[in-house]
């Protein structure tokens, strides 16, 4: 049984009486201990789909269809109280901006210990010992003293380490990390991602890594879901997808990034146009206005998601050469 099994998840927003679909019937599963990347640009729905898993959608948004099965239990059928118990103990989350996700007027120690006491039912003293061990594990030196400090005493990278310690506090089975290093410098980014990879491996924790950075996916993920316009357009083994993308959007993304391992003179081949705006109706395949291979069917019919790709004319080697 997969750890998390999302089926046909649909998230919509209501404003001024009209309902707009932001996440459009996505399905994916993650096995225990696995690292899955969700990659996509702004408005692709990659963050929303994960907030839905955590039951953290803002009030204007709602899940209108689908199931979120965690260890076989549908999270959507649970009460607020039940979901709160799962959140933090079984599933935890690391956000992009560690400054805004930590409480600025409470010490780091009380914030980590809260999670430990709440979820593991340990005494104050035991919780404190565990907090020190966790902080040390995530590379915060002098943890004993730093427990008493406040978030503003910590640098961006250190705050993200604290967030990881909090996420780990109750030994969750799944961590969802939403752009965890986007706000950090590259050398700190490498430290944090190496740390996350190590703790997930050591604890057998599954990781959903949400990012827009194709390099991070390549270095840290086993499998990848490529999202566009609220849908998963391609998914599969990261190596296979990078070597031979089958959806034109995936191909376009890979050709858009300058790479250190390639000759400087290789020109970038950007995708034309702009990312799909969820509030603008697009018929057929949502990528069709930007797709270099667009055909009549793409304008009229939504492609089904089959065998890891949602495209009427998935790419293969022979077709690529013809263009």
């Amino acid at each position, binding site marked *: 049984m997969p750890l998390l099994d999302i089926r046909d998840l649909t998230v919509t927003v209501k404003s001024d009486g009209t309902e707009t679909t932001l996440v459009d019937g996505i399905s994916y599963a993650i096995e225990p201990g696995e690292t899955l990347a969700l990659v996509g640009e702004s408005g692709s729905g990659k963050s929303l789909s994960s907030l839905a898993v955590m039951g953290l959608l803002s009030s204007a948004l709602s899940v209108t269809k689908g199931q979120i099965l965690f260890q076989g239990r549908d999270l959507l059928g649970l009460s607020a109280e039940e979901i709160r118990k799962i959140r933090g103990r079984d599933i935890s989350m690391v956000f992009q901006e560690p400054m805004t996700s930590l409480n600025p007027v409470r010490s780091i120690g009380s914030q980590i210990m809260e999670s430990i006491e709440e979820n593991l039912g340990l005494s104050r003293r035991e919780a404190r010992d565990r907090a020190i061990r966790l902080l040390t594990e995530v590379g915060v030196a002098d943890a004993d003293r730093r427990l008493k400090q406040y978030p503003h005493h910590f640098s961006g990278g250190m705050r993200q380490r604290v967030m990881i310690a909090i996420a780990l506090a109750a030994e969750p089975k799944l961590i969802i990390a939403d752009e965890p290093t986007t706000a950090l410098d590259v050398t700190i980014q*490498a430290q944090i991602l190496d740390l996350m990879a190590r703790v997930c491996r050591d604890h057998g924790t599954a990781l959903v890594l949400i990012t827009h950075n194709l*390099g*991070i996916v390549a*270095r840290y993920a086993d499998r990848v879901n490529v999202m566009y316009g609220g849908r998963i357009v391609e998914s599969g083994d990261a*190596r296979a997808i990078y070597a031979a993308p089958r959806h034109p959007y995936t191909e376009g993304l890979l*050709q858009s*990034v300058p790479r250190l391992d390639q000759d400087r003179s290789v020109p970038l081949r950007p995708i034309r146009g*702009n990312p799909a705006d969820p509030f603008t109706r697009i018929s057929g395949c949502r990528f069709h206005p930007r797709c270099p291979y667009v055909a009549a069917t793409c304008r009229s019919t939504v492609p089904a998601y089959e065998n890891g790709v949602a495209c009427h004319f998935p790419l293969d080697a022979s077709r690529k050469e013809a263009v």
Partner: protein
Amino acid sequence: MEALMRIEGVSVHFPVRKGLLQRQVAAVRAVENVTLELRKGEALGLVGESGCGKTTLARTVLRLVEPTEGAIWFDGQNITDLKGKGLAPYRRRVAAIFQDPFSSLNPRMTSGQILTEVLKVHKYPGDVTARVQELLSLCGLAPRFADLFPHEMSGGQRQRVGIARALALDPEIIVCDEAVSALDVSIQAQIINLLEELRTKFGLTYLFIGHDLSVVRHLCDRVAVMYLGRVMETADSEEIFANPRHPYTRALIDAIPTPDPEGERGREHVALGGEIPSPLNPPSGCVFHTRCPLAMERCRQEVPVLERLTRDHAAACFALDAEA
């Protein structure tokens, strides 16, 4: 190649004031004794992490920040001495593109008005309306964009307006401060290609500030790597990435994952330990010594100077001597 601009021994210190009398108690040493040359027609990249001084240096070049020490020479003139009206010709010849086009464009003006304003302020001699249309088209925007407000455009389109504004007065140098950093991957590639195309078309010189090494390498002919206010290494783009000599440059390149899962699996990378120290209280000697894997006693005491290794490659590191 001739130098179009010369940054000579520039330091920028921001005073930290405290108390009733606002006495200066400390200084943020944002840029420390930087010497760089910008050659005609080249794209020079300034890379580094937060607090390395790259943006402050760019703002000094734009005369938005006054240097504490040193001079900037442009076309035989020390531009740090220019004042008031005397600056106008310089502002025509050196333009800028900023990171966030949303905050650098006036939200109450259409892109047509934004471009017209620049042209009028600098008394553009030709037909202003025609020039606005020409600028939009150069930047890949249809004529109707003249009537749109910034909020009616996407991030990529706004950045195109920002580029059109920079081009308005036919500048010689464009300072690009993180000009593509805020954009989605597919849009970023469009803007990079546009910048390259414009550079060839008009023989522009770029000073390109960025933190994404892959982008900087792609767009720039030469690169200067900065750390805590100082230049650590400069070289041709190809050279610095193929053969980085400074331990910081090496760590920086190592830290960047390439979009190639196969290659990444076989790639050893050692993440640089520690944190970037505060420019309020930079380490003694070589500012990188607190994180450097090769640090020696000497690095704690003396400041290494940029030493020329080959004609176009220079690095500031004592360990290079030991290596040689």
